[in-house]
């Protein structure tokens, strides 16, 4: 079964918030089977484009602190296991 993995950045409709215009961007990763009867879509906010009345533009990234922390915990755990393995079997020699 061939799978189709695709990541794309999508642009949402511009929101008028007072004098400021905000354009949201999201990042979507989809995994669909060739028959397209099974699939997974992971959609998360990416950034926002702020357009001010004076013409200045600013891109503010939307950082997901929870996801970053979870990845950090996983990375630290893997590192801790590797270090423990090295020290445990080093002592035994």
């Amino acid at each position, binding site marked *: 079964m061939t799978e189709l993995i695709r990541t794309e950045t*999508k*642009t*949402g*409709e511009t*929101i008028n*918030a*007072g*004098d*400021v215009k*905000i354009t*949201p*961007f*999201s990042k*979507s990763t*989809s995994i669909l089977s060739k028959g*397209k*009867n*099974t*699939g*997974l*879509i*992971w*959609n*998360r*906010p990416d950034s*926002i484009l*702020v357009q001010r009345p004076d013409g200045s533009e*600013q891109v*503010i*990234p*939307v*950082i*997901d*602190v*929870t*996801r970053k*922390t*979870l990845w950090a*915990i*996983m990375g*630290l*755990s893997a590192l*801790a*296991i590797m270090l*423990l*393995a090295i020290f*445990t*079997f080093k*002592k*035994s020699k």
Partner: protein
Amino acid sequence: MAEDSKTLDKNKMMIDESALDIIQKNMKEFLRAGSVDAVYGKPIKQGDTVIIPTAEVLSLMGFGVGSGYGRGPSGDEGNGENESEGGGGGGGGGGRILSRPAAVVIVTSQEVRVEPVMDVTKIGLAALTAGGFVLGMFFRMLSARSALKDM
């Protein structure tokens, strides 16, 4: 005989089309999770401040449909009197949409800022699970070391 074959094909096509309708309807709902609207909520106005909630959305889905149409064996004489035919179709599937707040966009008259939303429960549970796993691995390594020493 040719007419029977046509009826058979027509019935099979009807069953297949209804199955396709089900697939298309479900796929539309599923693909909606991939749109920007699913991630950014409707702006909430509170005085001069506008708040736009954002969320991470994970959508999983799987389904299958099947159909069949057939004719029973003909009678001994082969005159087609005892002939029977029938068809049927069925399907099943399941899915889940998981959503979690990621951040909040706050727009005031002075500034635009993004405030992250921290899921302390999720982080706490992940930390406990990871800690337990590391400890478990450590004890396994210790027992493996003592087993190596005994050899």
